[in-house]
């Protein structure tokens, strides 16, 4: 069957419910899925943040200090370290007045990938290109 592309679309803010975080951790799990698949089969998720889903992505999070939980910032860095494509909707960042340079990267950890701020049309394309779409 080869590669199956998935679009993970996060439309709810981090730190209210749990599923916005679970979107990131489920996407990261693509790294180990091959142990359950036939040789040559892979899963490639693209992680997309739209609407209120762009809230809670900014640098400088202290969730471990305040609540003893891994921050979304750390999860995002881990996603970049395993080479996930992470897209954040440009129009929604502008809508909420969030500057693009407040979005973290994992360069200091050696990640090649960065979070890409893109127009919604590019997220629409990721949804169209995917075999399955999962809204969180």
């Amino acid at each position, binding site marked *: 069957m080869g590669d199956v592309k998935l679009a993970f*679309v996060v*439309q*709810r803010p981090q730190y209210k419910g749990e599923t916005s975080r679970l979107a990131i951790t489920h996407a990261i799990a693509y790294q180990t899925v091959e142990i359950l698949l036939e040789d040559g089969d892979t899963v490639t998720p693209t992680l997309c943040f*739209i*609407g*209120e889903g762009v809230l809670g992505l900014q640098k400088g999070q202290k969730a471990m200090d305040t609540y003893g939980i891994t921050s979304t910032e750390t999860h995002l860095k881990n996603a970049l370290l395993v080479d996930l494509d992470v897209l954040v909707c440009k129009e929604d960042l502008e809508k909420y007045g969030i500057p693009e340079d407040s979005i973290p990267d994992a360069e200091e950890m050696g990640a090649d990938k960065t979070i890409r701020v893109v127009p*919604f049309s590019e997220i*629409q394309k990721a*949804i*169209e290109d*995917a*075999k*399955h*779409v999962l*809204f969180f």
Partner: protein
Amino acid sequence: MKLGVFVSDYTITVDTLDRLKAEKLGIILVANGVYHATIKENGKTSPLLDKTPNLYVLSEDLQTRGIAESDVDKRVKVVNYGDVVDLIFNEYEKTAWL
């Protein structure tokens, strides 16, 4: 893209549905989403019903809420769980639960 969207709430707090483009869009109203098919808020039908001609509402979720099928907007087809399975497999390539 043929996309079947499940709407399970009456109050939609996100504009995702407005932004998604699909060559064939289906809206399947379930749980409290069924009110889109029946309520006329301030005398107006739900704007959701103008988005596509492919509208469905789950009969079990109407019955649960004491809503008669005769109260459902004429544009919306009443379906059961078996019909929803057929919609998923036969009419749409992808599904989204909003």
